[in-house]
């Protein structure tokens, strides 16, 4: 199978994630879309690793996974706190900061 297909898949996942961040309103879903984008980057790293014939990309994808896990911890902490204070995780409700 042509290896560039993996890149197309990665680009598609990244785009779905990016569009999701922009259009979705629930903070959790927005956050999931960001994770999708990170994983799309991971797929690109691994594909390029195969294309370039070295392992750097695969190592990079492990680092990304660890960082993404840290991000989940921080992100869920923030989202849960904000949900507890206003009983909603909608990004639209969080609009006190307007000029």
């Amino acid at each position, binding site marked *: 199978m042509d290896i560039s297909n993996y890149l197309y898949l990665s680009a598609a996942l*990244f785009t779905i994630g990016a569009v999701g961040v922009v259009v979705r309103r629930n903070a959790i879903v927005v956050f999931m879309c960001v994770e999708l984008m990170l994983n799309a980057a991971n797929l690109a790293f691994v594909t390029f690793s195969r294309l370039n014939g070295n392992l750097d990309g695969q190592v990079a994808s492990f680092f990304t996974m660890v960082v993404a896990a840290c991000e989940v911890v921080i992100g869920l902490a923030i989202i849960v706190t*904000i949900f507890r204070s206003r009983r909603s995780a909608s990004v639209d409700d969080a609009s006190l900061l307007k000029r």
Partner: protein
Amino acid sequence: MNAPKLDYALLAPILIILGGALIGVLVEAFLSKTRRAGVQLVISFVTLTAALVQVIRIRRSGSSGAAVLSVSIDAAGIFIQGTILVLSLVALLLIADTDNFTAQASAIPGSSQESVAIQAGKQQTEVFPLTLFAIAGMLLFPVATDLVTLFVALEMLSLPLYLMAGLSRRRRLLSQEAALKYFLLGAFSSAFFLMGSAFLYGYSGTLTLNGIASAIHTSGNNNVFLLIGIAFVSVGLLFKVGAVPFHNWTPDVYQGSPTPITGFMAACTKAAAFGATLRIFYVALDGAQWSWKPLISVIAVITMLFGAIAAWSQRDVKRMLAYSSIAHAGFILTAVVSLNSHALSGALFYFVVYGFATIGAFGIVTLVRDSSGEVGDVNRWIGLGKKAPLTASTYSLFLLSFGGIPLTAGFIGKFAVFSAAYESGNIYLTVAGVLSSAIAIFFYLRVVVMLFFQNPESDSVSVVIPSVMTRIAISICALATIILGLFPSLLLNAADSFALFTR
């Protein structure tokens, strides 16, 4: 197989800070609540000072191979690390006033749990270790020379800041909202940075910046992977520095965060993020400059003009300072485009100057209060010069430095950056820079006029007597702004001799 050789003396500043942060976490877990604040403060001070001493000791012994090919502690990197540590020490004096932070971040705003925690004096002090973790990331980001280390450092400095943005004691809903916005947009931009890194790796077959530079040199630069990589990495970096199409988070986050944290992140994050941006563009992407220079130039011009113009319509003091910081991001971006060592030394000088003025200005914002906390509304600052001449004039000093009035440090910083842009042939950038400075100066002068020459409307605003540490912090910032304005060569010569990225 040989174990990789690490140069611990050069890495020591980062490791010292991480060690201090871990001790801080243990203190938070095991020490009784009444004694924590003092102990945490001492730990943070000692670690920051130790790291600064170590940075000064290694100032002439930089090496590009501190940690194999991942970290390059070179002259410019050492200068930026020193800058970040000095600014953090000053910012820590503001953060030390724990009255600005919520007693218990997990308690629901306005709940009985919260008021119990406040009444019992159960102040949690997690802000200190978080600050140290963020500083460790900031020290690593400008010296990282491979894409993975850059990404890890970027997240290391961002993740603690997301949390710190939500720790304000007053107006907690606003603060939590700032944390949410900062987090979602920050994670979004990191994903772009990571995707760009993947494409740069795909193009060059290596993660190191030097490897990317030599790939551009040998295999030409008209490659779609390279272009996608540059574009996406730039998005991630421009977001962090707050340049215009990606600036939306800045005013909201600056307004919602606890004010000492805003000062800290405005000054130190900007130095770290611009340090990394300069390194990536100077070291890795230098050979492909035709593909990014036009776009970054346009972004620089838009950023400075937008920041200077949008500041006019702001009603809130912190939002106003946020827009002014956007304009400054544009000024420093001219140094990225100029690509010569004068621009680099100008940028290094600018970090120091801008950092001191920013921390000082936000320090003053913490002092102007009414019964419900800090007063954000600019109109209520009218006539402050009559109530508190010293505070108002110090604030004016910082604003004049932002504006770049001669005899303040800001003028020298702008002069250094713009003359380097002129030297490199980007005359339109110089013109746009001077033009937007002029717009900004009028704006800053308007605020000064409001402070001194208009009569106050309401009497509910008062300037609280600053704590000793806040007073020291603001004094240091004011002194630095004046001294660097009168005797710029003290620092300019140093910046000149340090303005070098080792390839």
